[in-house]
């Protein structure tokens, strides 16, 4: 992974000093709450329902074991012993004291971490595929490009106060696991027919209050022009994005208002001034960054299909786990393993300090000392020898990471909701738990198969409910918490937005509602048909009829 040089380190340390002084001035009354607010937000510090929440940046989801140990220590020393993996691959602490935050940042800086631009109206953490660099279907490793974007976007002087937050995602695989089409800018790295590397550029996708799938405005941008082109998009947005209404301030509204064609013309007119200027990327820089992402010292191994099949037969639990939580790796004899943070009874994405320490230890022993956070709020050991999968499974069970539910109904994407977040209309964690408890029969859960259930506690959509196969949105109805259900969303390639099923439900109805939806699927599916495909074939009506049937 990327390792800071003296420049990167200096910038992060200067940021700690700057924020320490800003916080001191706020506490001394020299800065008003209103003035301090954008400053703290740009450092990931929210004032929450019970305590501040600090969001730590995990650039494109990558962490070293040393960094994981530091997070464990911070969870112990400054929080209540746990951390939360967010849907943007970041890490959140829910209970730090505001006075301690500068010290936490100083601790993070010792392991090349920070909280820069994890909130606020600026360019946020660039996200990517959690299997970047190891996926079998990968065409281009997105990680060097994410790092190049990270550096360009860090304290960009011109884009410090955008109309609204701005999110960039990069995908380099056949399958889109980075959900690029629902980002402000989505970049698909690919090679053209001449074999040259470049990017297909989407703009104006997003979730939130007005979910929109992005529009591709450039089918092939040669890699050298990546930063100048991003700068052109951001300049057009910074100047012309709406600032009079925060709900209409995202770039998607501008793109829609102008039409994607006119927006593209504006970007290209701006870019004409920048093309081949100093922002043009150099071979030397791409090489410098890329050398941090070369393959680790893989052994020459063979795939272990027979041995694993034998273990499967002896240990059905292992077989189940392997079928859901282990995916193919580009190197023979290796596999990528997802550690589920979705056991029933724990808030989705939460991880304790002890688990973090155990994770760091597992990473060192099984996976070259690195882990990745996924936007589904799980953790990945990306480089595990297949011959070690069985012993690893044993260790994962002890640490509480082996719930065999990755990609299943109970692998819920869920925001912190009304239990923590002051923006939320409704709680989300208890709904996730009620559904997990209802679907506690593993055989039934496996039979239902691939299903993304996404829960957001409000229309800011941190739980990505618009792109869940089943989406749940917390709404406020006359001071009561209700839940709106939608079906048919998908964040992958050819992304689609979910359709609302109908009137919302009370919290205690939710497990029943999901149960009825699943029954309609099971009765209507053809062999091996996924929930999403059945939905797309039969439409929303059968689901509507069953869920709102008078006799329940």
């Amino acid at each position, binding site marked *: 992974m990327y390792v800071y*040089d003296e*420049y990167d380190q*200096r*910038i992060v340390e*200067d*940021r700690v*000093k*700057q924020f320490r002084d*800003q916080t001191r001035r706020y506490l001394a009354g020299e800065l008003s709450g209103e*003035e301090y607010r*954008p*400053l703290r937000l740009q450092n990931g510090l929210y004032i929450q329902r019970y305590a501040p929440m600090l969001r730590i940046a995990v650039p494109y989801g990558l962490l070293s074991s040393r960094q994981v140990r530091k997070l464990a220590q911070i969870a112990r020393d400054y929080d209540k012993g746990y951390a939360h993996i967010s849907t943007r691959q970041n890490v959140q602490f829910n209970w730090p004291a505001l006075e301690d935050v500068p010290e936490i940042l100083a601790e993070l800086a010792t392991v090349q971490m920070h909280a820069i631009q994890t909130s606020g*109206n600026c360019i946020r953490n660039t996200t990517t595929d959690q299997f970047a660099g190891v996926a079998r279907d990968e065409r281009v490793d997105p990680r060097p490009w994410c790092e*190049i974007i990270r*550096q*360009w976007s*860090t*304290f*960009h*002087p*011109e*884009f*410090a*106060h*955008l109309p609204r937050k701005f999110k960039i995602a990069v995908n380099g695989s056949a399958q889109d696991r980075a959900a690029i089409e629902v980002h402000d800018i989505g970049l698909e790295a690919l090679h053209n027919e001449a074999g040259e590397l470049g990017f297909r550029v989407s703009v104006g996708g997003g979730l939130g209050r007005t979910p929109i799938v992005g529009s591709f405005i450039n089918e092939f941008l040669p890699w050298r022009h990546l*930063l100048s082109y991003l700068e052109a998009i951001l*300049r057009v947005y*910074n*100047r012309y994005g709406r*600032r009079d209404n925060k709900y209409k301030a995202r770039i998607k509204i501008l793109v829609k208002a102008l039409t994607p064609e006119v927006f593209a013309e504006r970007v290209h007119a701006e870019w004409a*001034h920048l093309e081949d200027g*100093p*922002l043009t*990327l*150099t071979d030397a*820089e791409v090489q*410098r960054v890329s050398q941090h992402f070369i393959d680790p010292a893989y052994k020459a191994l063979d795939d272990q299909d027979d041995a694993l099949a034998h273990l499967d037969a002896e240990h059905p639990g292992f077989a189940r786990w392997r079928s859901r939580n282990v995916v193919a790796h580009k190197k023979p004899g290796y596999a990528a393993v997802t550690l589920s943070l979705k056991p029933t009874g724990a808030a989705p994405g939460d991880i304790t300090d002890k688990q973090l320490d155990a994770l760091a230890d597992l990473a060192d022993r099984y996976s070259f000392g690195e882990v990745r956070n996924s936007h589904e709020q799980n953790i990945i050991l990306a480089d595990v020898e297949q011959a070690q999968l069985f012993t690893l499974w044993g260790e994962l069970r002890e640490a509480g990471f082996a719930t065999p539910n990755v990609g299943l109904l109970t692998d819920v994407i869920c925001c912190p909701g009304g239990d923590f977040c002051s923006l939320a209309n409704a709680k989300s964690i208890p709904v996730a738990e009620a559904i997990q408890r209802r679907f506690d029969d593993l055989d039934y859960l496996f039979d239902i198969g691939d299903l993304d259930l996404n829960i957001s506690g409000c229309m800011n959509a941190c739980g990505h409910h618009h792109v869940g196969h089943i989406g749940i949105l917390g709404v406020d109805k006359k001071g009561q918490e209700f839940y709106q259900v939608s079906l048919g969303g998908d964040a992958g390639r050819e992304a689609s937005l979910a359709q609302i099923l109908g009137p919302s439900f009370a919290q205690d109805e939710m497990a029943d509602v999901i149960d009825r939806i699943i029954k309609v699927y099971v009765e209507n599916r053809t062999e091996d048909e996924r929930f999403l495909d059945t939905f797309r074939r039969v439409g929303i009506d059968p689901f509507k009829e069953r869920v709102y049937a008078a006799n329940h």
Partner: protein
Amino acid sequence: MQRIIKDGRIIDETWHTLAKDATLEGMSNCDDLIVPLALWRDHAHALKARDGGLGVWLDADEEIEEIADQLEHFQVIALNFPAFTDGRHSSTAYLLRQRYGYQGEVRAIGDVLRDQLFALRRCGFDAFALREDRDPEDALKAFDDFAEVYQASSDQPLPLFRRRA
């Protein structure tokens, strides 16, 4: 007398910034004036004929393109921040310096606070009329916030990746 930051030092203000609805009526001939864009739009000839210095100020929703071919008439271009979180004029300052080659003073006015100065200077501002309740002396410290930066902008022609040792 208000004091402003100019080129990293504190100086006494000698310019008068006219309100957005100002007219020519009773206007001094000799004072150095920063006039609103609308006044310039309607009375460019009269303003050019005065003996005093001339500057113009743009509100956050006014575009620099409108006067891009008239910049030689202005010793000062002031850009107003209705709120410090309104970043539009960061782009305006960049364009003034980088695209239109403006060499005169680019001044930040309005809700201008210490914690924005470092980035604003990078974009091309060289003068800052801080919000009146703030101490410019204290704000000078902001210019030392960072020793190194990643991006090219008006203060630094090359991005860090072209300068890394």
